[in-house]
């Protein structure tokens, strides 16, 4: 079925549940360390193993991280929240229940702004229903090669790792919006050090609720839940596959059955994991081993004060202060280190709107490209704010050409260094001496009589050809605009 047509017939309604590992050294309810990639079952304490007689004690660091997440998403942080036990039997869940929050979560009622994937200049406000704190389970390894077909291995290193679950309102209307929401959330949480959000390590995982309804219908359609979508790409493809499946069902006069679905990325197919009528009864009740989590206004304020400026606030400040466009400011604030770098450059080179605009252009056009090509980011690159300022000054006074500066940026991000020295070593000083340029132009003119004639016959293209020849002879060290002016001047005079 044609997706275009589905979207014209139906409104797609998506809500996301995102699980985020909090950036803490210890687990949520024991001082046992968190580590990724350690030998299986080497990061387990008596609490992680649920040995008889063990008790949970909440990690204050984890609470701080969770409150940060709530504050940056404009949620109301509740002065009292309650941990509850969620029961199910599975071998990687040692207690037979997961400690989570249920009736009284940490925070409710927030939102984040995302840019509309169909029009980047517009913004959509996506509501957040709630954020609650919970512990992760361990891992079951069914890998045949590792475990053999009759055996499942259990690794409890991850059991008890602190998580928050961020539940959105059903405000998303397309897989693209869902992905944009996820990317935005991913960026924000990393920005304020809530989490390292490394998706490959399972630190940022997503479940999606999705339903379709005819445009104009007020009631929601029957939804399904897609579980364990662990990359942006799989979120997008799984949602697409499920939209098509639901639409085909509805078109064929059938109905969607409430179910939990999985996604097989290899075959790009969704499949039913279990039907709602077989849904577990988790038998939630308040965990009697833990007292209610109390957060005083003072503590919440302290956490708020410790937050860095949010991307959205910084974006607006860059727009207001330096006159950057929203788009430019968004790119510059897409990561905290990049925004810091930008501000450092301005602090050295001058906080004027003109310079800010120049720096923003150079960062977006050249620096980010150079980083991407070499699989670096601004923190891991060797380019310093000082070097960029120096280089841009040299461009400004035409000591180097734009072309040379671009080449130098590629070098600076990898190996660093002082632009002044590099220009000298590489002999990249721009050719601005008119007598040298004159000589070169003279050479080119005399070597290309045909091009000269066709230029005079009105072939504008010949001018470009001649310019190219001059640039080649000066090895890019001449400023194109100067060469052009000189050439035109020369050709007016005619052949000598």
């Amino acid at each position, binding site marked *: 079925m044609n997706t275009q047509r589905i979207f014209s017939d139906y409104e797609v309604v998506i809500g996301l549940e995102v699980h985020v590992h909090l950036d803490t050294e210890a687990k949520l309810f024991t001082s046992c360390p968190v580590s990724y990639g350690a030998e299986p079952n080497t990061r387990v304490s008596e609490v992680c193993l649920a040995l*008889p*007689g*063990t*008790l949970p004690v909440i990690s204050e660091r984890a609470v701080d991280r969770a409150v940060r997440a709530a504050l940056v998403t404009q949620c109301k942080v509740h002065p009292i929240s309650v941990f509850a036990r969620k029961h199910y*039997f599975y071998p990687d869940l040692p207690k*037979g229940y997961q400690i989570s929050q249920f009736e009284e979560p940490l925070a409710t009622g927030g939102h984040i702004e995302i840019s509309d994937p169909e029009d980047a200049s517009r913004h959509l406000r996506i509501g957040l229903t709630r954020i609650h704190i919970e512990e992760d389970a361990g891992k079951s390894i069914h890998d045949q090669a590792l475990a053999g077909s009759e055996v499942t291995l259990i690794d409890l290193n991850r059991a008890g790792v602190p998580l928050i679950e961020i539940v959105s309102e059903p405000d998303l209307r397309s897989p693209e919006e869902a992905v944009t929401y996820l990317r935005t959330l991913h960026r924000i949480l990393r920005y304020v050090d809530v989490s390292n959000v490394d998706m490959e390590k399972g630190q940022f995982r997503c479940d999606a609720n999705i339903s379709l309804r005819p445009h104009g219908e007020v009631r929601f359609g029957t939804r399904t839940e897609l579980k364990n979508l662990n990359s942006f790409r799989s979120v997008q493809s799984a949602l697409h596959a499920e939209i098509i499946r639901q639409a085909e069902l509805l078109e064929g006069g059938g109905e969607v059955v409430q179910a939990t679905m999985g996604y097989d990325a290899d075959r790009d197919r969704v499949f039913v994991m279990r039907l709602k009528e077989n849904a577990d009864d988790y*038998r939630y*009740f308040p965990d*009697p081993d833990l007292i209610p989590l109390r957060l005083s206004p003072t503590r919440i304020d302290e956490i708020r004060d410790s937050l860095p400026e949010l991307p959205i606030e910084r974006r607006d400040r860059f727009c207001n202060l330096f006159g950057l466009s929203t788009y430019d400011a968004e790119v510059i604030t897409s990561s905290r280190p990049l925004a810091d770098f930008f501000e450092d450059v301005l602090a050295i080179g001058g906080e004027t709107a003109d310079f800010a605009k120049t720096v923003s252009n150079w960062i977006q056009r050249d620096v980010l490209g150079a980083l991407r090509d070499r699989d670096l980011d601004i923190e891991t690159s060797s380019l310093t704010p000082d070097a960029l300022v120096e280089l841009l000054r040299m461009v400004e006074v035409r000591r180097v050409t734009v072309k040379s500066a671009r080449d130098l940026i590629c070098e600076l991000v990898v190996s660093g260094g002082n632009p002044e020295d590099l220009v000298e070593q590489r002999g990249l000083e721009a050719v601005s001496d008119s007598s040298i340029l004159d000589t070169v132009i003279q050479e080119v003119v005399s070597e290309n009589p045909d091009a000269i004639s066709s230029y005079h016959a009105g072939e504008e293209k010949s001018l470009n050809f001649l310019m190219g020849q001059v640039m080649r002879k000066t090895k890019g060290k001449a400023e194109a605009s100067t060469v052009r002016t000189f050439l035109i001047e020369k050709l007016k005079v005619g052949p000598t």
Partner: protein
Amino acid sequence: MRDDPGNRPPTAMELQNMLAEGETTSAQLVEDALSRAKVSDDLGIFVSLREDSAIKEAQASDRFRSEKKARSRLEGIPVAIKDNIAIAGEPLGCGSKILDGYISPFSSTAVERLRAFGAIPIGATNMDEFAMGSSTEHSIHGSTRNPWQRDRVPGGSSGGSAAAVAAGVVPIALGSDTGGSIRQPASFCGVVGMKPTYGRISRWGLVAFASSLDQIGPIAHTAEDCALVLDCIGGSDSRDSTCLPSGSTDCYGALNAGLENLVIGLPKEYFQSTGVDAEVLEKVYDAVKHLEEAGAELREISLPHTEYAVSTYYLVATAEASSNLARYDGARYGKRSDAARSLVGMYEGSRSEGFGEEVKRRIFLGTYVLSAGYYDAYYRKAQKVRTLLRRDFEEAFLECDVIATPTCPEVAFPLGSKLDPLAMYLSDVFTVSANLVGVPGVSLPCGFKEGLPIGLQLLGQAGDDAMPLRIAHEYQKTTNFHCAVPPGVAP
């Protein structure tokens, strides 16, 4: 009377004096305790003994003493520990097949502190499986017998600990009390048992039955010994979030404050309740009269929601138990069914083979109570009643300093006589409220019926563990019920 303890085995305080005077050594005390444990093997008190390590620890304790470094009044004193309180390196069985072969790699805070103060655990005592029961008949190790009459139950679930003290094996034992599991066996065995304020003693290392109700507590011959133990093991613990801050109670120091100006409340709902043995009631009356003569004032009070306490208790306790016992799944430790060929098979096999009937019954009940559609009607309602009960007590304590009741409606019943679970549950009627409300409660011997001990229960205000102990101490100073010795117990 206190000067003539008769044939009663010595208290910890008395042993401490003997040790201090050089009349005996800790090694001797521990050896004696171990041999008495073996002599009284037919009572089924102990499930495991720490023979070698206890003697070594006793020798070390004797060295501490000879170097004038005795760590406390418990230095060198042998103690018994209920089999649901962890001792590092020792089996921890909870009277259950499902923990068959399980050895705890860590100690409970209570045991850790007892040992830091010099006491020497000699072994683990029998109990109803996972502390679920009032008779110590529901144990994989078989029944414990009441030292006073061997065809009677010792009470439960801390029946082994109460019998260990009554039979003179040790002067002090630790038990746990979720709905009366220390006080009721103390009453049946003619010893003193105390359930402290909820949160007084860390639950770290106590195998959970019902987390919001469970408390560890001491069992001894005297309130004085109980005070010693409580002061030693109580206090805040960073490993238990529900633990109270330290330092609010010095029970031992408050023991001799007397009865002047104290008001003892007698809840009419308890004294007028049907089904209480007349002789039990009479002896309890005698006891409070005795306290009145000694200077206290008696006042009738009301705890109007008492009739709902037992049902509320069984909703809360079973709900929490069904959750706490989910971890015994055969996956990581304890029993795994040999028959299992699948994941579900492992769970079903291990849990059906590993748990006894009473435990299964309570898991079923608790699972039901927490199920979708029943939660509001049962669990949530029970929590509301719990709040009402708490208010009952708060209001009662505006009128009195301590509440006196019978500990149990009857004396120790014959082994195997309560086959109906409901009859067994109803025998907890006077003890469960203290757990639901969190207040401290002491049971102390106050008479006999046909050679079987009767218990007086004193309930204090939450946090004030000293008060009921202080009154019990005054009572014991002028009575000698606690000095009686079960037949056949050698001095």
